[in-house]
Structure formats: structure tokens, C-alpha cells
């Protein structure tokens, strides 16, 4: 079975500072990896996804993530955050060959709190 761990439930950061949100996954098979963002009172929105190829993935709003197979990680980064980045961020996987095809398996989320 697959699982996703987001160890940081909340990450406070000052505006214009860099940020990294950590995500580790567990799977015995290859996975596709996703980061979604949930703004208050809105639906989940895809930030970026890794399917194959280059391990550095660039997404919307200046975010990027790097897939590290040896460390089973997919950390999300942004070099300079804005107040408007305050939201809940979810890491998720799909295991196309692991009996969990088409099902997103989510972590528990990390609240990014950007302070002025």
C-alpha cells in the first residue's frame, strides 16, 4: 500500500522569505506525484505534478518541486513567498501499477502561514 507523510502541519514564514514544504512517500512501486493547494473556502487546485522525465518540476505561482527517488521525497519550494500564498498544501501520489490506479492518496496537509 502507498502512503504520504507531511511531517510539518504548519510552516510559518515571513513574506519574501524562501520556503520548503516537505513530502515523503512510501510505495513499493513507481508513483506519480502531485502537489495541490487549497485556499480558504475554495477547492483543491493543482500546483504541479511529476509523471516522468526531469526530476525538477515547475508549477504555477512560482512553485517548484524535486523528485528524489532514493529518498522517496517530493519537497515543494518557493524562493520568495507572498501573503497570498497562505493556504493549505497537500502532497499526493497515484500508484498506477500498485492497485491504487486513478486514486489520489493524500498527505495530511501543511498550512503555510505567511506573515508580513
Amino acid at each position: 500500500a502507498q502512503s504520504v507523510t507531511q511531517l510539518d502541519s504548519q510552516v510559518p514564514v515571513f513574506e519574501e522569505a524562501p520556503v520548503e514544504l516537505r513530502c515523503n512517500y512510501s510505495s513499493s512501486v513507481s508513483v506519480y506525484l502531485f502537489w495541490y493547494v487549497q485556499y480558504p473556502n475554495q477547492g483543491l487546485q493543482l500546483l504541479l505534478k511529476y509523471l516522468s522525465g526531469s526530476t525538477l518540476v515547475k508549477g504555477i505561482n512560482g512553485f517548484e518541486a524535486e523528485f528524489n527517488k532514493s529518498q522517496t521525497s517530493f519537497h515543494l519550494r518557493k524562493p520568495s513567498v507572498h501573503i497570498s500564498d497562505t493556504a493549505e498544501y497537500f502532497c499526493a501520489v497515484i500508484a498506477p501499477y500498485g492497485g491504487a490506479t486513478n486514486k489520489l492518496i493524500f498527505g495530511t496537509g501543511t498550512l503555510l502561514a505567511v506573515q508580513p
Partner: protein
Amino acid sequence: GAGVSQTPSNKVTEKGKYVELRCDPISGHTALYWYRQSLGQGPEFLIYFQGTGAADDSGLPNDRFFAVRPEGSVSTLKIQRTERGDSAVYLCASSLRLADTDTQYFGPGTRLTVL
């Protein structure tokens, strides 16, 4: 264009009552998914449809939960004899095809509170 919409946005009901939650997917999307998000948790898969048929309902917690998509577009999640533990945000998503690589687009959710 219009995204995934869900109605109602909030539903308060009493223990033991029956509820229906509706999802309107993005026009042209053939795959539709339901997830449930409990407080402080990430969304958990319930069921997905390819067209009118439920391709995988392995995430439904028990037989009180049922979902339909009779015409391959709108879907309704039905919960019988609601329990306090059913309180959660129910999320619907759709994708163009039923494919692991296709992006799932989420609606804003229905917050269900069972008193």
C-alpha cells in the same frame, strides 16, 4: 470555463436522516471522483466513475453510502441513516479521461454536519 460545482455548500442534518450531495463536473469530462476530507486530514478516496458506471467503489466506508451518475454527467452521493462520524467535507473531482496522468479538478466541496 466553469469548474466543478457542488451543491449544497453546507448541509446540516440530524443523526439517522438521509442526505444527497450533488456534483456537476466540468463539461466533457468523462471521469468523476468523490473524496471525503475529515477535519485535520487529507482527502480520502471514496469512489470513481467512468461514464455512468462506478469503476471503483472500494473507498465507500459501508453500505450506507451509495453514489450514482445515471447520465454520465451529474453525480449524486447518497448517505442513509447518517451518523455523527459522517461529518466531513465531501469533495468531488472530474478529469477529462480516466487516466492516472490526467489532472483531477476539484470542486469547492460540501460540508456535511451531522448533529
